[in-house]
Protein backbone atom coordinates (compact mmCIF):
# COMPACT_ATOMS: atom_id res chain seq x y z
CA UNK A 1 0.00 0.00 0.00
CA UNK A 2 1.27 3.46 -0.80
CA UNK A 3 1.27 5.98 1.98
CA UNK A 4 1.68 9.69 1.67
CA UNK A 5 4.78 10.59 3.69
CA UNK A 6 2.88 13.17 5.69
CA UNK A 7 0.41 10.48 6.82
CA UNK A 8 1.93 9.05 9.97
CA UNK A 9 -1.04 6.70 10.35
CA UNK A 10 -2.91 5.35 7.34
CA UNK A 11 -5.94 3.12 7.91
CA UNK A 12 -7.96 1.58 5.09
CA UNK A 13 -11.03 -0.60 5.60
CA UNK A 14 -9.93 -1.75 9.04
CA UNK A 15 -12.22 -4.44 10.46
CA UNK A 16 -11.99 -6.15 13.82
CA UNK A 17 -14.44 -8.85 14.81
CA UNK A 18 -14.82 -10.72 18.08
CA UNK A 19 -16.88 -13.75 17.04
CA UNK A 20 -19.92 -12.27 15.35
CA UNK A 21 -19.48 -8.88 17.04
CA UNK A 22 -18.00 -6.20 14.79
CA UNK A 23 -16.01 -3.85 17.04
CA UNK A 24 -14.42 -1.87 14.19
CA UNK A 25 -16.45 -1.67 11.02
CA UNK A 26 -14.34 -0.71 7.98
CA UNK A 27 -12.54 2.26 9.50
CA UNK A 28 -10.78 4.43 6.95
CA UNK A 29 -8.84 7.50 8.04
CA UNK A 30 -5.37 8.94 8.27
CA UNK A 31 -3.47 10.98 10.82
CA UNK A 32 -1.08 13.69 9.67
CA UNK A 33 2.42 14.01 10.99
CA UNK A 34 2.62 16.49 13.85
CA UNK A 35 -1.09 16.98 14.39
CA UNK A 36 -3.21 16.50 17.49
CA UNK A 37 -5.78 13.95 16.45
CA UNK A 38 -8.80 13.54 18.73
CA UNK A 39 -10.29 10.05 18.71
CA UNK A 40 -13.70 10.38 20.33
CA UNK A 41 -16.61 8.05 20.89
CA UNK A 42 -19.02 6.77 23.49
CA UNK A 43 -17.96 3.96 25.83
CA UNK A 44 -18.08 0.76 23.84
CA UNK A 45 -17.92 2.48 20.44
CA UNK A 46 -14.71 0.63 19.58
CA UNK A 47 -11.97 3.16 20.39
CA UNK A 48 -9.86 0.93 22.61
CA UNK A 49 -10.02 -1.90 20.09
CA UNK A 50 -8.72 0.39 17.36
CA UNK A 51 -5.98 1.86 19.54
CA UNK A 52 -4.74 -1.61 20.50
CA UNK A 53 -4.38 -2.48 16.82
CA UNK A 54 -2.58 0.77 16.01
CA UNK A 55 -0.17 0.18 18.90
CA UNK A 56 0.66 -3.29 17.64
CA UNK A 57 -1.01 -5.07 20.56
CA UNK A 58 -3.69 -6.89 18.61
CA UNK A 59 -4.24 -7.98 15.00
CA UNK A 60 -7.05 -6.59 12.87
CA UNK A 61 -9.40 -9.05 11.17
CA UNK A 62 -8.77 -7.30 7.86
CA UNK A 63 -7.73 -4.00 6.33
CA UNK A 64 -4.55 -2.18 5.42
CA UNK A 65 -3.00 -0.31 8.32
CA UNK A 66 0.35 1.49 8.37
CA UNK A 67 1.69 3.14 11.51
CA UNK A 68 4.86 5.25 11.32
CA UNK A 69 5.72 3.56 8.04
CA UNK A 70 5.23 -0.03 9.24
CA UNK A 71 2.34 -2.39 8.78
CA UNK A 72 0.51 -3.79 11.78
CA UNK A 73 0.63 -7.42 10.59
CA UNK A 74 4.33 -8.21 10.51
CA UNK A 75 6.20 -5.15 11.76
CA UNK A 76 4.66 -4.76 15.19
CA UNK A 77 7.97 -4.61 17.05
CA UNK A 78 9.14 -1.78 14.81
CA UNK A 79 5.88 0.07 15.49
CA UNK A 80 6.25 -0.34 19.24
CA UNK A 81 9.65 1.35 19.15
CA UNK A 82 8.29 4.35 17.31
CA UNK A 83 5.32 5.04 19.54
CA UNK A 84 4.69 6.19 23.08
CA UNK A 85 1.62 5.30 25.13
CA UNK A 86 0.01 6.75 28.19
CA UNK A 87 -3.32 6.20 29.89
CA UNK A 88 -4.73 7.28 33.20
CA UNK A 89 -4.93 3.70 34.39
CA UNK A 90 -1.49 2.48 33.41
CA UNK A 91 1.49 4.73 33.30
CA UNK A 92 4.08 4.78 36.07
CA UNK A 93 5.15 2.23 38.67
CA UNK A 94 3.82 3.43 42.01
CA UNK A 95 6.48 1.65 44.05
CA UNK A 96 9.42 3.11 42.14
CA UNK A 97 10.78 6.64 42.49
CA UNK A 98 10.43 9.32 39.82
CA UNK A 99 14.03 8.82 38.81
CA UNK A 100 13.69 5.01 38.68
CA UNK A 101 10.61 5.25 36.50
CA UNK A 102 12.37 7.50 34.01
CA UNK A 103 15.40 5.22 33.84
CA UNK A 104 13.27 2.10 33.54
CA UNK A 105 11.35 3.41 30.54
CA UNK A 106 14.45 4.87 28.94
CA UNK A 107 16.14 1.48 29.32
CA UNK A 108 13.21 -0.32 27.75
CA UNK A 109 13.57 1.96 24.74
CA UNK A 110 17.31 1.21 24.70
CA UNK A 111 18.64 4.67 25.28
CA UNK A 112 22.34 4.76 26.22
CA UNK A 113 23.30 5.10 29.87
CA UNK A 114 24.96 8.48 29.43
CA UNK A 115 22.08 9.84 27.40
CA UNK A 116 19.60 8.66 30.01
CA UNK A 117 21.48 10.49 32.76
CA UNK A 118 21.65 13.83 31.06
CA UNK A 119 18.12 13.71 29.70
CA UNK A 120 16.73 12.61 33.05
CA UNK A 121 18.23 15.71 34.62
CA UNK A 122 16.88 17.95 31.86
CA UNK A 123 13.43 16.45 32.17
CA UNK A 124 13.22 16.77 35.95
CA UNK A 125 14.45 20.32 35.73
CA UNK A 126 11.92 21.26 33.08
CA UNK A 127 9.07 19.80 35.11
CA UNK A 128 10.48 21.43 38.25
CA UNK A 129 10.55 18.04 40.00
CA UNK A 130 14.30 17.68 40.62
CA UNK A 131 13.92 18.13 44.37
CA UNK A 132 11.64 15.10 44.66
CA UNK A 133 13.39 12.79 42.22
CA UNK A 134 13.80 10.12 44.91
CA UNK A 135 10.21 10.15 46.07
CA UNK A 136 7.96 7.20 45.30
CA UNK A 137 5.36 7.82 42.62
CA UNK A 138 2.58 6.85 45.03
CA UNK A 139 3.52 9.78 47.26
CA UNK A 140 3.18 12.58 44.70
CA UNK A 141 -0.01 14.36 43.55
CA UNK A 142 -1.93 13.02 40.56
CA UNK A 143 -1.29 16.12 38.47
CA UNK A 144 2.49 15.70 38.78
CA UNK A 145 2.20 12.00 38.00
CA UNK A 146 0.36 12.74 34.80
CA UNK A 147 2.85 15.31 33.63
CA UNK A 148 5.70 12.93 34.38
CA UNK A 149 3.89 10.02 32.73
CA UNK A 150 3.46 12.06 29.57
CA UNK A 151 7.11 13.11 29.57
CA UNK A 152 8.17 9.50 30.03
CA UNK A 153 5.89 8.41 27.18
CA UNK A 154 7.72 10.78 24.81
CA UNK A 155 11.18 10.42 26.38
CA UNK A 156 12.42 8.28 23.48
CA UNK A 157 11.13 10.85 20.96
CA UNK A 158 8.51 8.64 19.37
CA UNK A 159 6.82 9.51 16.08
CA UNK A 160 3.40 9.13 17.68
CA UNK A 161 2.17 9.27 21.24
CA UNK A 162 -1.14 7.57 22.09
CA UNK A 163 -2.93 9.22 25.01
CA UNK A 164 -5.91 7.27 26.29
CA UNK A 165 -8.01 9.51 28.54
CA UNK A 166 -4.89 11.14 29.93
CA UNK A 167 -6.59 13.89 31.93
CA UNK A 168 -9.23 11.99 33.91
CA UNK A 169 -9.79 13.32 37.40
CA UNK A 170 -7.30 16.20 37.52
CA UNK A 171 -8.16 19.79 38.36
CA UNK A 172 -9.02 22.22 35.56
CA UNK A 173 -5.68 24.03 35.69
CA UNK A 174 -3.60 20.84 35.56
CA UNK A 175 -5.75 19.64 32.66
CA UNK A 176 -4.93 22.77 30.71
CA UNK A 177 -1.23 22.61 31.52
CA UNK A 178 -1.30 19.03 30.26
CA UNK A 179 -2.77 20.12 26.94
CA UNK A 180 -0.09 22.78 26.60
CA UNK A 181 2.47 19.99 27.03
CA UNK A 182 0.78 18.00 24.27
CA UNK A 183 0.84 21.05 22.05
CA UNK A 184 4.54 21.67 22.76
CA UNK A 185 5.33 18.04 21.90
CA UNK A 186 3.66 18.40 18.51
CA UNK A 187 5.85 21.44 17.82
CA UNK A 188 8.78 19.05 18.12
CA UNK A 189 7.21 16.89 15.43
CA UNK A 190 5.51 14.31 17.63
CA UNK A 191 2.01 13.32 16.55
CA UNK A 192 -0.56 13.08 19.34
CA UNK A 193 -3.45 10.61 19.14
CA UNK A 194 -5.82 11.41 22.02
CA UNK A 195 -9.04 10.09 23.52
CA UNK A 196 -11.01 12.06 26.10
CA UNK A 197 -14.44 12.42 27.65
CA UNK A 198 -13.93 16.13 28.29
CA UNK A 199 -15.57 17.74 25.28
CA UNK A 200 -13.79 21.08 25.71
CA UNK A 201 -10.58 19.15 25.08
CA UNK A 202 -11.90 18.10 21.69
CA UNK A 203 -11.58 21.77 20.76
CA UNK A 204 -7.81 21.64 21.36
CA UNK A 205 -7.34 19.02 18.63
CA UNK A 206 -6.41 19.84 15.03
CA UNK A 207 -8.86 17.21 13.78
CA UNK A 208 -11.40 15.07 15.54
CA UNK A 209 -13.03 11.77 14.63
CA UNK A 210 -16.18 10.55 16.33
CA UNK A 211 -16.90 6.83 16.49
CA UNK A 212 -20.40 5.46 16.88
CA UNK A 213 -21.08 1.71 17.07
CA UNK A 214 -17.78 0.69 15.52
CA UNK A 215 -17.85 3.19 12.65
CA UNK A 216 -16.37 6.63 12.17
CA UNK A 217 -19.41 8.88 11.83
CA UNK A 218 -17.58 12.17 11.45
CA UNK A 219 -14.03 13.37 10.95
CA UNK A 220 -12.95 16.98 10.49
CA UNK A 221 -11.54 20.02 12.24
CA UNK A 222 -13.54 21.12 15.29
CA UNK A 223 -14.55 24.32 13.47
CA UNK A 224 -15.93 22.42 10.45
CA UNK A 225 -17.73 19.88 12.62
CA UNK A 226 -19.44 22.61 14.60
CA UNK A 227 -20.54 24.27 11.37
CA UNK A 228 -21.65 20.99 9.79
CA UNK A 229 -23.75 19.98 12.81
CA UNK A 230 -24.90 23.52 13.58
CA UNK A 231 -23.55 23.33 17.10
CA UNK A 232 -21.98 25.95 19.32
CA UNK A 233 -19.41 23.58 20.76
CA UNK A 234 -18.01 20.06 20.40
CA UNK A 235 -20.15 18.74 23.23
CA UNK A 236 -23.26 19.49 21.17
CA UNK A 237 -21.71 17.88 18.09
CA UNK A 238 -20.91 14.79 20.12
CA UNK A 239 -24.37 14.56 21.67
CA UNK A 240 -26.04 14.92 18.27
CA UNK A 241 -23.91 12.21 16.70
CA UNK A 242 -23.61 9.70 19.49
CA UNK A 243 -27.23 9.91 20.57
CA UNK A 244 -28.89 9.45 17.20
Amino acid at each position, binding site marked *: MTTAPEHIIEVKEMVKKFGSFVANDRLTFHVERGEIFGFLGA*NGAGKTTAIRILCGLSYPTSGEIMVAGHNVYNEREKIKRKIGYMSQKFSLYEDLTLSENIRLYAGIYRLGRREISSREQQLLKRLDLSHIRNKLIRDIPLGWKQKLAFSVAIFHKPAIVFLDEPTGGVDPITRRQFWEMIHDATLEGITAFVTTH*YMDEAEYCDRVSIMVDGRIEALDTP*ASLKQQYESKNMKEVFLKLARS
Partner: protein
Amino acid sequence: MSLILDHIDKSFETVQALRQVNLEVQEGELFGLIGPDGAGKSTLFRIMASLLIPDSGRCTMLGHDVVKEYREVRQIIGYMPGRFSLYMDLSVEENLAFYARVFGTTVKENYDLIRDVYDQIAPFRKRLAGKLSGGMKQKLALSCALIHRPRVLILDEPTTGVDAVSRREFWDMLKKIQGEGITIVVSTPYMDEAEMCDRVGLIQKGNLMAISDPASLADGSDARLFSLRSNKGVYAYLDQLRKMEGCRHVWLFGDELHVTLRSAADVNQVQSAIREWADDSLEWKSIVPTIEDRFMELLKEEEI
Protein backbone atom coordinates in the same frame (compact mmCIF):
# COMPACT_ATOMS: atom_id res chain seq x y z
CA MET B 1 -32.11 19.87 56.97
CA SER B 2 -31.24 16.60 55.35
CA LEU B 3 -27.56 16.73 56.05
CA ILE B 4 -25.43 18.87 58.34
CA LEU B 5 -21.64 18.81 58.39
CA ASP B 6 -20.23 20.86 61.25
CA HIS B 7 -16.48 21.58 61.28
CA ILE B 8 -15.38 18.19 60.00
CA ASP B 9 -11.67 17.41 60.20
CA LYS B 10 -10.06 14.20 59.00
CA SER B 11 -6.39 13.24 58.63
CA PHE B 12 -4.66 10.12 57.40
CA GLU B 13 -1.17 9.86 58.86
CA THR B 14 0.52 12.98 57.48
CA VAL B 15 -2.21 14.00 55.05
CA GLN B 16 -4.97 16.32 56.13
CA ALA B 17 -7.84 15.10 53.97
CA LEU B 18 -10.54 17.46 55.26
CA ARG B 19 -10.17 20.82 56.97
CA GLN B 20 -13.07 22.32 58.92
CA VAL B 21 -15.73 21.39 56.42
CA ASN B 22 -19.14 22.93 56.98
CA LEU B 23 -22.15 22.17 54.85
CA GLU B 24 -25.93 22.04 55.08
CA VAL B 25 -28.03 20.27 52.47
CA GLN B 26 -31.78 20.73 52.46
CA GLU B 27 -34.38 18.02 52.05
CA GLY B 28 -35.07 17.29 48.41
CA GLU B 29 -32.01 19.20 47.23
CA LEU B 30 -29.60 18.02 44.53
CA PHE B 31 -26.18 19.06 45.81
CA GLY B 32 -23.02 18.67 43.76
CA LEU B 33 -19.51 18.45 45.15
CA ILE B 34 -17.03 19.44 42.45
CA GLY B 35 -13.32 18.85 42.69
CA PRO B 36 -10.36 16.91 41.31
CA ASP B 37 -8.99 13.56 42.49
CA GLY B 38 -7.47 13.79 45.92
CA ALA B 39 -9.51 16.85 46.95
CA GLY B 40 -11.25 14.96 49.76
CA LYS B 41 -14.60 14.17 48.11
CA SER B 42 -14.58 10.44 48.84
CA THR B 43 -13.41 10.94 52.42
CA LEU B 44 -16.27 13.33 53.03
CA PHE B 45 -18.78 10.94 51.48
CA ARG B 46 -17.55 8.02 53.54
CA ILE B 47 -18.02 10.09 56.68
CA MET B 48 -21.60 10.92 55.58
CA ALA B 49 -22.22 7.24 54.91
CA SER B 50 -21.01 6.35 58.46
CA LEU B 51 -18.09 4.34 57.08
CA LEU B 52 -15.38 6.67 58.43
CA ILE B 53 -15.26 8.52 61.74
CA PRO B 54 -14.16 12.17 61.58
CA ASP B 55 -11.29 13.28 63.84
CA SER B 56 -13.44 16.15 65.02
CA GLY B 57 -16.68 17.86 64.10
CA ARG B 58 -20.14 16.43 63.75
CA CYS B 59 -22.21 15.06 60.89
CA THR B 60 -25.94 14.41 61.08
CA MET B 61 -28.21 12.81 58.53
CA LEU B 62 -31.88 13.79 58.99
CA GLY B 63 -31.03 14.53 62.61
CA HIS B 64 -29.18 11.28 63.24
CA ASP B 65 -25.53 11.47 64.25
CA VAL B 66 -23.56 9.40 61.75
CA VAL B 67 -21.19 8.11 64.45
CA LYS B 68 -23.54 7.42 67.37
CA GLU B 69 -26.60 6.45 65.35
CA TYR B 70 -24.98 4.78 62.41
CA ARG B 71 -27.60 2.01 62.30
CA GLU B 72 -30.41 4.50 61.70
CA VAL B 73 -28.28 6.42 59.22
CA ARG B 74 -27.58 3.32 57.16
CA GLN B 75 -31.31 2.62 56.85
CA ILE B 76 -32.09 6.02 55.38
CA ILE B 77 -29.20 6.48 52.99
CA GLY B 78 -28.28 4.91 49.68
CA TYR B 79 -24.56 5.00 48.96
CA MET B 80 -22.86 4.38 45.65
CA PRO B 81 -19.10 4.42 46.14
CA GLY B 82 -16.68 5.44 43.40
CA ARG B 83 -15.60 1.92 42.75
CA PHE B 84 -18.71 -0.03 42.06
CA SER B 85 -20.29 -1.82 44.94
CA LEU B 86 -21.48 -4.74 42.85
CA TYR B 87 -20.71 -8.41 43.23
CA MET B 88 -19.08 -9.24 39.93
CA ASP B 89 -19.77 -12.97 40.27
CA LEU B 90 -23.48 -12.46 40.80
CA SER B 91 -25.90 -11.76 37.97
CA VAL B 92 -27.70 -8.46 37.49
CA GLU B 93 -30.90 -9.65 39.15
CA GLU B 94 -29.02 -11.44 41.93
CA ASN B 95 -27.21 -8.23 42.83
CA LEU B 96 -30.46 -6.32 43.01
CA ALA B 97 -32.23 -9.03 45.05
CA PHE B 98 -29.27 -9.16 47.42
CA TYR B 99 -29.38 -5.43 48.16
CA ALA B 100 -33.13 -5.53 48.62
CA ARG B 101 -32.83 -8.39 51.12
CA VAL B 102 -30.03 -6.72 53.09
CA PHE B 103 -32.39 -3.80 53.69
CA GLY B 104 -35.31 -6.05 54.52
CA THR B 105 -37.35 -5.19 51.47
CA THR B 106 -38.10 -6.75 48.09
CA VAL B 107 -37.37 -5.71 44.54
CA LYS B 108 -41.11 -5.69 43.86
CA GLU B 109 -41.94 -3.27 46.66
CA ASN B 110 -39.86 -0.40 45.32
CA TYR B 111 -39.68 -1.35 41.67
CA ASP B 112 -41.46 1.80 40.54
CA LEU B 113 -38.58 3.89 41.89
CA ILE B 114 -35.93 2.12 39.86
CA ARG B 115 -38.03 1.28 36.81
CA ASP B 116 -36.52 3.92 34.52
CA VAL B 117 -32.99 2.91 35.38
CA TYR B 118 -33.46 -0.81 35.66
CA ASP B 119 -35.52 -1.24 32.49
CA GLN B 120 -32.43 -0.31 30.49
CA ILE B 121 -30.44 -3.20 31.93
CA ALA B 122 -33.32 -5.68 32.42
CA PRO B 123 -32.61 -7.41 29.08
CA PHE B 124 -29.27 -8.51 30.61
CA ARG B 125 -30.63 -9.57 33.99
CA LYS B 126 -29.11 -13.05 33.75
CA ARG B 127 -25.66 -11.68 32.91
CA LEU B 128 -22.91 -11.54 35.54
CA ALA B 129 -22.28 -8.01 36.76
CA GLY B 130 -18.60 -8.47 35.91
CA LYS B 131 -19.52 -8.90 32.23
CA LEU B 132 -21.44 -5.63 31.93
CA SER B 133 -20.13 -2.52 30.19
CA GLY B 134 -19.19 0.50 32.33
CA GLY B 135 -22.44 2.32 31.61
CA MET B 136 -24.55 -0.70 32.51
CA LYS B 137 -22.62 -1.33 35.74
CA GLN B 138 -23.29 2.26 36.68
CA LYS B 139 -27.04 1.82 36.12
CA LEU B 140 -27.11 -1.42 38.11
CA ALA B 141 -25.15 0.16 40.98
CA LEU B 142 -27.62 3.05 41.03
CA SER B 143 -30.55 0.60 41.09
CA CYS B 144 -28.96 -1.24 44.02
CA ALA B 145 -28.41 2.01 45.93
CA LEU B 146 -32.07 2.93 45.44
CA ILE B 147 -33.83 -0.37 46.02
CA HIS B 148 -34.64 0.32 49.72
CA ARG B 149 -36.03 3.77 48.82
CA PRO B 150 -33.45 5.81 50.75
CA ARG B 151 -34.25 9.37 51.78
CA VAL B 152 -30.74 10.54 50.98
CA LEU B 153 -28.74 9.27 48.04
CA ILE B 154 -24.93 9.65 48.17
CA LEU B 155 -23.19 9.14 44.84
CA ASP B 156 -19.40 9.27 44.71
CA GLU B 157 -18.24 10.16 41.17
CA PRO B 158 -20.88 8.10 39.37
CA THR B 159 -19.92 9.53 35.97
CA THR B 160 -16.12 9.46 36.04
CA GLY B 161 -14.74 7.90 32.86
CA VAL B 162 -18.22 7.84 31.33
CA ASP B 163 -18.82 9.38 27.90
CA ALA B 164 -20.76 12.62 27.42
CA VAL B 165 -23.92 10.91 26.17
CA SER B 166 -24.19 8.45 29.05
CA ARG B 167 -23.39 11.25 31.47
CA ARG B 168 -26.28 13.29 30.16
CA GLU B 169 -28.62 10.29 30.50
CA PHE B 170 -27.41 9.67 34.03
CA TRP B 171 -28.17 13.24 35.08
CA ASP B 172 -31.63 12.99 33.53
CA MET B 173 -32.19 9.97 35.79
CA LEU B 174 -30.95 11.85 38.84
CA LYS B 175 -33.43 14.64 38.16
CA LYS B 176 -36.26 12.11 38.13
CA ILE B 177 -35.08 10.55 41.37
CA GLN B 178 -34.95 13.99 42.93
CA GLY B 179 -38.55 14.40 41.77
CA GLU B 180 -39.46 11.51 44.08
CA GLY B 181 -38.43 13.67 47.04
CA ILE B 182 -35.05 12.05 47.55
CA THR B 183 -32.14 14.28 48.60
CA ILE B 184 -29.09 13.69 46.42
CA VAL B 185 -25.45 14.49 47.18
CA VAL B 186 -23.22 13.74 44.20
CA SER B 187 -19.57 14.38 43.41
CA THR B 188 -17.99 14.84 40.00
CA PRO B 189 -14.79 16.04 38.36
CA TYR B 190 -16.80 17.41 35.39
CA MET B 191 -17.58 21.11 35.76
CA ASP B 192 -20.35 21.04 33.16
CA GLU B 193 -22.38 18.75 35.43
CA ALA B 194 -22.47 21.46 38.08
CA GLU B 195 -25.15 23.25 36.09
CA MET B 196 -27.54 20.38 36.74
CA CYS B 197 -27.35 20.84 40.53
CA ASP B 198 -29.42 23.12 42.76
CA ARG B 199 -26.27 24.12 44.58
CA VAL B 200 -22.63 23.17 44.25
CA GLY B 201 -19.58 23.22 46.45
CA LEU B 202 -16.04 23.49 45.13
CA ILE B 203 -13.51 21.42 47.02
CA GLN B 204 -9.72 21.32 46.75
CA LYS B 205 -7.10 19.93 49.15
CA GLY B 206 -9.70 19.26 51.81
CA ASN B 207 -11.08 22.81 51.80
CA LEU B 208 -14.67 23.41 50.79
CA MET B 209 -13.99 26.71 49.09
CA ALA B 210 -17.31 28.03 47.84
CA ILE B 211 -20.93 26.95 48.06
CA SER B 212 -23.62 28.48 45.91
CA ASP B 213 -26.18 27.82 43.24
CA PRO B 214 -24.47 27.39 39.87
CA ALA B 215 -25.76 30.64 38.39
CA SER B 216 -24.53 32.91 41.17
CA LEU B 217 -21.31 31.06 41.98
CA ALA B 218 -19.57 33.31 39.52
CA ASP B 219 -20.90 36.41 41.30
CA GLY B 220 -18.36 35.98 44.05
CA SER B 221 -15.66 36.69 41.54
CA ASP B 222 -14.36 40.15 40.76
CA ALA B 223 -12.30 38.81 37.89
CA ARG B 224 -11.79 41.02 34.90
CA LEU B 225 -12.35 38.19 32.53
CA PHE B 226 -12.14 38.32 28.74
CA SER B 227 -12.28 35.76 25.98
CA LEU B 228 -10.19 35.69 22.84
CA ARG B 229 -11.12 33.76 19.74
CA SER B 230 -9.48 33.51 16.33
CA ASN B 231 -10.00 31.56 13.13
CA LYS B 232 -6.27 30.87 13.17
CA GLY B 233 -6.56 29.03 16.46
CA VAL B 234 -5.61 30.40 19.84
CA TYR B 235 -2.47 28.46 20.77
CA ALA B 236 -0.35 31.05 18.98
CA TYR B 237 -1.58 33.84 21.24
CA LEU B 238 -1.22 31.97 24.52
CA ASP B 239 2.41 32.87 25.16
CA GLN B 240 2.10 36.39 23.81
CA LEU B 241 -0.70 37.20 26.23
CA ARG B 242 1.10 35.58 29.15
CA LYS B 243 4.08 37.84 28.55
CA MET B 244 1.93 40.94 28.90
CA GLU B 245 2.20 42.82 32.14
CA GLY B 246 -1.55 43.32 32.47
CA CYS B 247 -2.55 39.67 32.04
CA ARG B 248 -2.76 37.76 35.27
CA HIS B 249 -3.90 34.36 33.98
CA VAL B 250 -4.35 33.05 30.46
CA TRP B 251 -5.87 29.62 29.91
CA LEU B 252 -7.11 27.52 27.04
CA PHE B 253 -10.88 27.29 27.18
CA GLY B 254 -12.45 25.19 24.44
CA ASP B 255 -11.90 27.12 21.22
CA GLU B 256 -11.14 30.31 23.17
CA LEU B 257 -8.56 31.70 25.52
CA HIS B 258 -9.83 33.07 28.80
CA VAL B 259 -7.78 36.00 30.03
CA THR B 260 -7.94 37.44 33.54
CA LEU B 261 -6.52 40.94 33.76
CA ARG B 262 -4.72 42.29 36.82
CA SER B 263 -6.89 45.37 36.98
CA ALA B 264 -9.58 47.04 34.94
CA ALA B 265 -7.02 49.67 33.96
CA ASP B 266 -5.11 47.09 31.91
CA VAL B 267 -7.90 46.67 29.37
CA ASN B 268 -6.71 49.44 27.05
CA GLN B 269 -3.11 48.30 27.11
CA VAL B 270 -4.03 44.71 26.23
CA GLN B 271 -6.55 45.71 23.60
CA SER B 272 -4.11 47.94 21.75
CA ALA B 273 -1.48 45.20 21.82
CA ILE B 274 -3.99 42.77 20.35
CA ARG B 275 -4.82 45.19 17.54
CA GLU B 276 -1.16 45.15 16.53
CA TRP B 277 -1.36 41.43 15.80
CA ALA B 278 -3.39 42.34 12.73
CA ASP B 279 -5.56 39.23 12.82
CA ASP B 280 -8.94 40.26 11.42
CA SER B 281 -10.65 37.17 12.77
CA LEU B 282 -9.75 38.00 16.39
CA GLU B 283 -12.69 38.40 18.73
CA TRP B 284 -11.97 39.89 22.13
CA LYS B 285 -14.79 40.46 24.56
CA SER B 286 -15.66 40.77 28.21
CA ILE B 287 -17.38 37.64 29.56
CA VAL B 288 -19.19 36.38 32.64
CA PRO B 289 -17.14 33.66 34.36
CA THR B 290 -18.34 30.06 34.22
CA ILE B 291 -18.05 27.71 37.18
CA GLU B 292 -14.82 26.39 35.72
CA ASP B 293 -13.36 29.92 35.51
CA ARG B 294 -14.36 30.51 39.11
CA PHE B 295 -12.80 27.24 40.22
CA MET B 296 -9.53 28.05 38.47
CA GLU B 297 -9.48 31.45 40.09
CA LEU B 298 -9.97 29.85 43.52
CA LEU B 299 -7.22 27.32 42.80
CA LYS B 300 -4.84 30.15 41.98
CA GLU B 301 -5.77 32.09 45.12
CA GLU B 302 -5.00 28.95 47.09
CA GLU B 303 -1.48 28.84 45.66
CA ILE B 304 -0.66 32.36 46.78
